[in-house]
Structure formats: structure tokens, C-alpha cells
């Protein structure tokens, strides 16, 4: 999902009078009328204005001019052209803001639950802020019932979502209630679940398809604590994982590949296979250079060519132990060949890029590519894979 906040939105007077609204878009001129009063009609190609919708939304300079003045309406800048039927947006006329909460056409939408966090990871892509942002929960609770019930998967991220406590549980419960066929993936540092009661509360929701993604960076507690910049975090995270699994909540471990911890990757793998064999997935993730990672680039960046051997050894240990293992965010050409089938195209389409040199590569369609933020930190090993003659 793109957390776009556009300030160049023009609202009509009726919109200002109506106040803020979270609403689902429809592009269907034949939409059954009982549904229209709870939806906004999104005009794309100078459609005639159908009756009965509670809002009208159009792209600025387009059909916006002819919008009926007595109905709340918004004219959006051209960058919103991607919006479509079934998308959910938040309209704030008094602030002149529109935010996109859910895109039906995307296979994965995530919600940032809070910007607060009790870790401060060296490479955090979403640096935490100590702000009072409880309003976000209200907004999501309002949006969830509007989300298309055939959505494959949604995600909760942060900050640290579990810092919301009971409200976090309330959100998971709402997801289970309104989206009974949708998988829920939650990114958490797991520390809150060191309290067994909290893990039990989450389990009691009995969500039908829930996975908690928890970062673990080292088998040595102080190395993990250093990466997450929080003393004692390792012990809490481990206890959290144990409690979650004790209550049969699925857990994915997420290991970012970065200079301070690549040397002990095989040790971490052995530690996981020996102590946490019951986890449901391990994702080994190449560094995304954004947020804090940019500030700490010198201590974090390591060319993937330098850790190929450790990665190979770690994946070997994990996969032989029968743990489902994936490599995220890595280009195929910098991975040892026997690891290619562990690599996933994990970079979201809107962040994904290829280099000019990739044009000659026969593996491009299978390759994760680069983050658009990769900038100058490109591996020395990037080279097109030329298909071998059969």
C-alpha cells in the first residue's frame, strides 16, 4: 500500500460541511442503489454522475468540474489515477488530505498501527517516533468492514503494533470478524509476548490464518540487543516466541543480512534449529536501504558476495532441519546457485527496480530485483545470468 498523503486535494463546500469520512470507492455506474449511500463514486472517464452515492471523487481537471455541488466531493491530483473500484480511502476535508488505506488490486495491503516502538533497530525502514497516534486504530477499525472480503492477505506493521495492548487485540479480532478468508501478517519484535497472558489473549482470538513475523539477529544476546538498540530485548523476544508457539500462534523469524551479524549466520541457524525448531518460517532478508539504514550505512552495508558462504551454510542448516526457509530482497546473480530456489520475489512491485544490465539477464523474471532506494549500494557481483544452452 502507498501511504500517500496528498495536500493538493480540492474539496467542495458540501464536503467541508460533511466532515471527515472513511469510505469505499465504487466505479460501477450500475451499483445497486442500497449500497450507494455508504460509498463514494469514483469517476474516471467523464462518466455521467450516477445518483445516490454519498460522496463523489474524481481526478482534478477531469470531470471534477461538473461534480454536483450539493453532494460532498473531492478532486484528487493526477497521482491518484491508480485508484479503482473497491479501494478504501480516508477523506479529511478540513485538512485538505486524502489517504489511501486499501487497494483492492494489490495482493498485499498493510496498515501501520503506530509509529511508537520499544526497539530502535539500526536499519529500521520506518524509524519510530514517540507520538500519540491512537487515532490510527480508530481509523483502521472503521476501514476494516469496508475492505473487500476476497482480499488474500493484509498486514499490520509499525512501529511496534503490540504496544497498543488491548487495542491491538481488538484490531486482530476485528480482522477475524470482517475478513474471515484473509490472511493476517503482523510484524512485531515479539517482546510484548514475553508476558504469557498477552500471548494467550492473541491466541484466544483464534484467527484462522495469522502469522507473526519477528526479527532475530543473532544467537548471542548482546549482538541482537545491539542491532535493535535495546538492552534485554533478546531475552524478551525469545520468551515471546516461546509463549506464542506455546499457544499455537504461528511465528516467522526475520533475519536481516547486515554486516554486524553475517559472520554468525550459521551459528544463528544452528541456534534456531536447536531451540526454535517449531517456528513456521525463516526469512533471510537482504538490507533495504531506507530510514535508519541510510544513516547507519557504513556499519550495516556488506556486499552480498562477502556473505555468500555464511548464507549458504545457514540455509543448509535450516532447510535440512525441515524449517521452511526463504531468501528475500536478494538478486539471484549474487546468490550461490544452490540457493536460487530459496529466493523469493519479495520486493513489492512499486518499490521494485532493475538495472540496465538486467536487460540481458535470463533470470530477470524470477529475480526480486532491487529496492528503488538501493542507490549506490549495488553488489560488485551483479551480472546478467545468461541462460545455458539446453
Amino acid at each position, binding site marked *: 500500500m502507498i501511504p500517500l498523503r496528498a495536500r493538493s486535494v480540492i474539496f467542495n463546500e458540501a464536503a467541508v460541511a460533511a466532515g471527515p469520512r472513511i469510505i469505499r470507492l465504487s466505479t460501477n455506474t450500475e451499483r445497486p442503489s442500497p449500497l450507494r449511500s455508504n460509498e463514494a463514486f469514483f469517476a474516471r472517464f467523464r462518466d455521467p454522475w450516477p445518483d445516490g452515492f454519498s460522496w463523489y471523487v474524481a481526478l482534478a481537471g477531469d470531470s471534477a468540474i461538473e461534480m454536483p455541488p450539493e453532494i460532498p466531493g473531492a478532486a484528487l491530483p493526477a497521482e491518484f489515477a491508480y485508484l479503482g473500484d473497491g479501494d478504501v480511502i480516508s477523506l479529511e476535508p478540513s485538512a485538505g488530505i486524502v489517504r489511501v488505506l486499501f487497494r483492492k488490486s494489490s495482493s498485499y495491503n498493510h496498515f501501520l498501527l503506530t509509529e511508537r516502538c520499544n526497539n530502535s533497530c539500526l536499519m529500521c525502514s520506518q524509524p519510530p517516533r514517540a507520538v500519540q497516534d491512537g487515532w490510527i486504530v480508530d481509523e483502521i477499525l472503521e476501514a476494516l468492514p469496508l475492505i473487500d472480503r476476497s482480499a488474500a492477505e493484509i498486514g499490520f506493521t509499525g512501529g511496534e503494533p503490540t504496544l497498543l495492548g488491548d487495542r491491538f487485540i481488538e484490531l486482530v479480532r476485528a480482522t477475524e470478524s470482517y475478513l474471515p478468508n484473509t490472511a493476517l501478517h503482523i510484524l512485531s519484535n515479539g517482546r510484548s509476548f514475553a508476558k504469557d497472558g498477552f500471548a494467550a489473549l492473541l491466541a484466544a482470538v483464534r484467527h484462522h490464518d495469522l502469522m507473526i513475523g519477528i526479527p532475530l539477529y543473532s544467537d548471542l*544476546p548482546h*549482538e541482537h540487543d545491539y542491532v535493535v*538498540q535495546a538492552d534485554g530485548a533478546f*531475552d524478551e523476544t525469545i520468551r515471546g516466541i516461546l509463549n506464542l508457539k506455546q499457544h499455537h500462534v504461528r511465528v516467522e523469524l526475520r533475519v536481516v543480512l547486515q554486516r554486524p551479524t553475517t559472520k554468525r549466520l550459521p551459528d544463528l541457524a544452528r541456534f534456531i534449529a536447536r531451540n526454535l525448531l517449531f517456528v513456521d518460517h525463516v526469512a533471510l532478508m537482504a538490507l533495504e536501504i531506507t530510514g535508519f539504514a541510510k544513516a547507519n550505512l557504513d556499519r550495516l552495508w556488506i556486499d552480498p558476495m562477502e556473505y555468500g558462504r555464511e548464507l549458504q551454510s545457514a540455509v*543448509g542448516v535450516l532447510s535440512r*532441519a525441515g524449517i521452511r526457509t526463504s531468501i528475500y530482497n536478494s538478486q539471484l546473480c549474487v546468490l550461490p546457485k544452490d540457493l536460487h530456489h530459496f529466493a523469493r520475489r519479495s520486493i513489492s512491485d512499486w518499490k521494485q527496480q532493475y538495472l540496465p544490465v538486467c536487460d540481458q539477464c535470463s533470470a530477470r523474471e524470477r529475480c526480486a530485483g532491487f529496492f528503488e532506494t538501493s542507490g549506490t549500494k549495488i553488489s560488485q557481483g551483479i551480472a546478467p545470468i545468461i541462460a545455458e544452452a539446453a
Partner: protein
Amino acid sequence: MSRFREPEYYDASAEALYTMLPWRFARLRDDTYVLTNMVGEYLTLPRSELESFATGALPAGHPAYNELKSRHFLFDDDTNVAIDLLALKTRTKLAPLANFTGLHIFVATLRCEHSCPYCQVSRANDDRTEFDMSEATARMALDLVFKSPSPAIKIEFQGGEPLLNLPLLRFVVSEAKKRNDAEGRDLAFVIATNLAMLTEEHLEFAREHDILISTSLDGPADLHNRNRPRPGQDSHQRAIDGIKRARAALGFHRVGALMTTTSASLTRVKDIIDEYVRMDFGGIFLRPLSPYGFAIKTKFYQSYDQRRWLEFYFEGLDYIIELNRRGLDFIEHYAAMVLKKMLTPLQTSYVDLMTPAGIGIGALVYNYDGTVYASDESRMLAEMGDQTFALGNVHKNSYEEIILSDKLLDPIEQSFAASSPGCAWCAFEPYCGSDPVFHHATQGDFLGKKPLSAFCTRNMAVFRGLIERMEADEEVCAIFERWANLI
């Protein structure tokens, strides 16, 4: 300037002395020692570092310190979650005990048309039915089977040659399935057969009830036929044909084979392994010969000592490792079960590697006449005239009388290796088992004196041999890791 702190800030390891968690050590060779923790995680260290660790003098940040910390040999001011993890791993290793008896062996008949000199149970001419299990006995035995709390029940038919008493097999299978409708256990059946008399009727029966086949294959034809005489001297050919027919009828993976080692086998380990490879088995169990039954009467057991068997074993193991290097996935089952204890948090259910001992807990044997034995070996001992491990009879005794009898509880109580003299301080205790039947048979004592125990000598050599091979070669580590997780 930076809001980020340096690694040292988070490392409180050096602020106070470390606390040791339970650990043991043994000399591997020369200056190298192997250290094990209470759940079998191990590492090797030179003597000086071992001494340093043992005397509380190993400095934080030393490479050995980190390895010991990661493997839960110690904890310090930095962290104490090690205790939670160690407790969890200990529970995991012991958890299978709570299931109690999963394997139930029915001796369907003592009749057999083979006359193998090493046979560990007595046999009878194959036309006399007084050595057959009756339906009445089987019914009483099934009462006991379903008294076991185990969620998984495996009923294995042994003999003699169990296929010679097909009506009884049919009765047990249908009766057990009927009872299981209400019980809902994970119920499986195995027939241990030499396959020589295999008919289409047998295969149809096995196919209908998803029955597994376990057969004997001692090696190439000359060796197999010498070990396993029968009228016509065609045991090997019949076994091979039977394996092929059974695979075709039941499914490739539903047919297993076991070999028995005799003195004639000792120079032939590669030929034996090649025979298993040729027959497309995924592995082999290089078994030691047991001291029971005919094996002892015919002096087979004395004919070679443990040292000779170990040479045979390691020659075979190294050959199998070589096969793996050359791209063949093929395992040695005994090594794989030990490696599971070494390299994974899980436990093996192999009776000889269980502590407390697997007698009664791992398996119960219901003899053709209704006598209940604590293990297969207990029955063999009884055939030699020693009734020590005959726990009762299905016609006379209740489940409680059998399971709670002193005859079973005494040897089990004495078989906790972690508290046995000689085992309690052994670095290899987490990998080992207890075998009160063996020690009773050879030393007249459930516990046995370990320095005199062939069981101890053999296992110690295997544990060392496996660790030495992993220490010497990373590729072997990867091969062994795969085995450990396969079994």
C-alpha cells in the same frame, strides 16, 4: 553525536562471573576434548580452554566463551533466557515417555520353514499348530494393547514366520480396527516376514489394510543363503522376489529390510551395502549381533568381539559416507538415530537408545501362548530359560498387574542413565540408552559394570567415531545433519 550505541554497551557478559549449566566432557583424542550439555549439544575444545572454562576463568568475549554461551553451557549477567530454553529442550527430549507403549509385538506363531542358526527365538516344524497364537489369546492381548495411553499404536506381527498363521493375522487386524473406531488412535500394522511363502492372498490382505512389510536381507545371495538356510537353499531369491512383489502391490516405501550380522558378514560389509543399494533401499541398519537365543547356543556370539564388529561398522559407515559424497542419498540407521540425539532437539524411539530403558515403555511382546515380555530380547532370554522379564500372561494378569509389576519397575528404575554409576558423568550420556536386559544377560545385573559392558564399549566407540568424522569434515556434517533429520 549518534543516537545509536556501540556493541559494547549491550554486552554485560564480563560484569560478573558466569554461571555454569550442567555439562560433561570426555577426551576425544590427544589434546582435543568433547564437551556436552544436558540435552546433547556439543563442541570440542583444546584442553587449555576446557580447563579455563571449568575453573571459571574463561574470559567473556573469548571465542570459546561465545560458543559455550550460544549452546547453553553457561549464562551470565547479559542474559538468562538460556534456562528457559534448556528446560524446554529437556522437556522435548523426555516428552515421548508420556506416550508410553507404542509398539506391540504379536508372536503369531513360532513355526518357520527357515532354520537360521542365529535365530533368536526357538522354531518348530511348520506343520505343528500348538505353537500358534489362538484367537482367545489375541483378544486378551488386544485388551492390553488398547489400555496403553499411546496416541499411536503399532502392532507388529512376528514369529517364527507370521504369514504361516494368516487367519490369526486377519483376526487381529479386523478386531483391532473395530476397537479403534471408538479409540481413534493412529493405528498401524507391520508384518515381519522372510517373504519366502508370500502369496497373492497375503499381498491382497496387506494392501487392503495398509500393512507395512519388514523383511530380512543379509547381503548378497551366497552370504544370505549361508546365514538363512531353508529347504532348496533359495532364501535370497525368494526375499528379492518378495520385496519386488510387495513393493509393486503395497507401494515402494511400505517395504523395509533388516540385516543380521554374523561372523561371515564381517569381511563383506561393502557387498552387503551394495546389495541394499542395488535393491534401491534408502539405507541400511548395520546391526550388531545380539547375545540371545540360538545366537549364544551356537557360539555365534562369541565368534567375534566388539572390536571386530566396530571395524566392520566403521568400514561400512565410511563406505556409506563415500556413497553420499558421490551423490547417493543413503543412510546408516544406527548412526542416524544417534545423530538425531546429537544434532536435533528431538528424541529417537529406538528401544536400545532410550533412557530410562525402553523395556515395556517402548514395546511389549505378546507371545503365542499369551506370555507378556518387556521386549523382544526378553522373550529370547526366556527361550534360554531365564524368565526375569516375563511380566505375566494375558489370560491371568490385568494391565495394571503387568505394567506396575516389580519385574518391570525395578529394572526401569535402575536404568536412568543420568543417575547410573559410570553413566552419570559420561559426556556421551545424552546420546546413549540403557539396556537392563542385555546387562542382566551378560553380567547378571540390570545396571552392569560399564567398563565390562560390550553395550558401553560399542556405543562409546560409535559416538566418538561420529563426532570425529564431523570434526574432520564439513561435508560429513551436512550429510549427518540430513540423516539426523530424516529418521
